[in-house]
């Protein structure tokens, strides 16, 4: 399993790098998911910043990941959720490529999962304008930017048994 994911990731590198040479970032609709949902290269073309990723993870208006996932290392964040699995060991149990794919669109890794897609812009039923309850005006931006996805991935990679 792990091996196929890596192999798929390797074959993807070329195509993604090509797209990036034009824009720097990969647009949501151009993200290439491997067979198991992994994404080989940085969506922003830049490395992630783990400290910023921690903020994205814990902030309601950003990733709000903590509403569903507990992370033991975040000792000062109260009321961590239990809808998704605890992520205290993600940096050991998952590769960077897998984590990127899961955060960008978890449905590519886990069929029908409850987890929202954070780097996607269409295919929604009655998309709203944030939390206003009103209709979205025009195309929605993805919930997280390419760089925020990279930042969260960098943060997840720091989560290891201490």
């Amino acid at each position, binding site marked *: 399993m792990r091996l196929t994911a890596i192999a798929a990731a390797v074959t993807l590198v070329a195509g993604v790098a090509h797209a990036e040479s034009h824009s720097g970032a990969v647009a949501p609709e151009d993200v290439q998911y491997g067979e198991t949902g992994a994404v080989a290269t940085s969506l922003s073309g830049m490395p992630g910043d783990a400290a910023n990723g921690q903020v994205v993870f814990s902030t309601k208006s950003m990733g709000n990941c*903590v509403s569903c996932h507990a992370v033991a290392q975040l000792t000062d964040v109260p009321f961590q959720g239990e809808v998704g699995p605890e992520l205290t060991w993600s940096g050991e149990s998952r590769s960077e490529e897998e984590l990127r794919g899961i955060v960008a669109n978890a449905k590519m890794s886990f069929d029908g999962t409850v987890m929202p897609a954070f780097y996607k812009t269409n295919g929604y039923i009655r998309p709203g304008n944030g939390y206003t309850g009103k209709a979205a005006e025009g195309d929605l931006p993805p919930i997280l930017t390419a760089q925020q996805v990279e930042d969260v991935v960098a943060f997840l990679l720091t989560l290891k048994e201490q």
Partner: protein
Amino acid sequence: MKFKAMTAIAALLLAPAAFAGGADDDVLVINGEIEMTTKADAPAHLDGALDQVISGWHFRADETQQLETDDFENQGMIFVDQAIDQWNTAAGSEGKSCADCHGAPEDNMAMVTATYPKYDSDAGELQTVQMQMNECRTERMGADPWKYDSGAAVNMEALIASVGRGTPVQVAIDGDAAPYYEQGKEMYYTRYGQLELSCANCHEENFGNYIRADHLSQGQINGFPTYRLKNAKLNGVQSRFKGCIRDTRAETFSPGSDEFVALELYVKSRGNGLSVEGPSVRN
């Protein structure tokens, strides 16, 4: 039962970080006399989606639960008192009050909340309690309809629920109600909004789990209208639906819309067998 409690304690001791999940085993008796059914075998039409249906009361903190056991502590009853005044007051061009046609609510309204929404063949539509009340106001009293889920409407709905407390919810889903049931069911499993979450994602797959600070219940509506500590007033079912859909970053529906009327029937039917509990107390 005993054994389950012990394993739960053992699990807590092993993993102190874990939350205590699930519904509790408390028993709800109101005013020392109305014995409430707050857990029941799931109705057959749920087709195994749930084994047991559980009132939202079981997912609230002990202090919140306590408030519902006594009408003097249940602040929702203050609004019921206001509705009693309204019940007895004439309104509209006909100069009639609810009492003029219906007498005392406890004598004639006890089965209403348990059986609504209900198909009304004269009106040719499925009606919620609020729609029925507005039919009386406009057609029999010559009064203006109440705005859907407005204070006056929800308070009156709570009075009607309060006299039916303890009665098992038993809405009909067959015959003329069937198309509404199907529409509501479809909505219940639709993943709305940018977060792509359905009612079922939270209230069927994850009840008992915490989503941030909120302990997810089954989203049952046997306890509506609910007095919420958060806004210190009675809250209508459809306003609650609106809030939940809004929280999926979706364009929501409006209270009183055809969609929410159908959804109300479907969600109510998921609680067939639970006691009518409104006005309940929630956070």
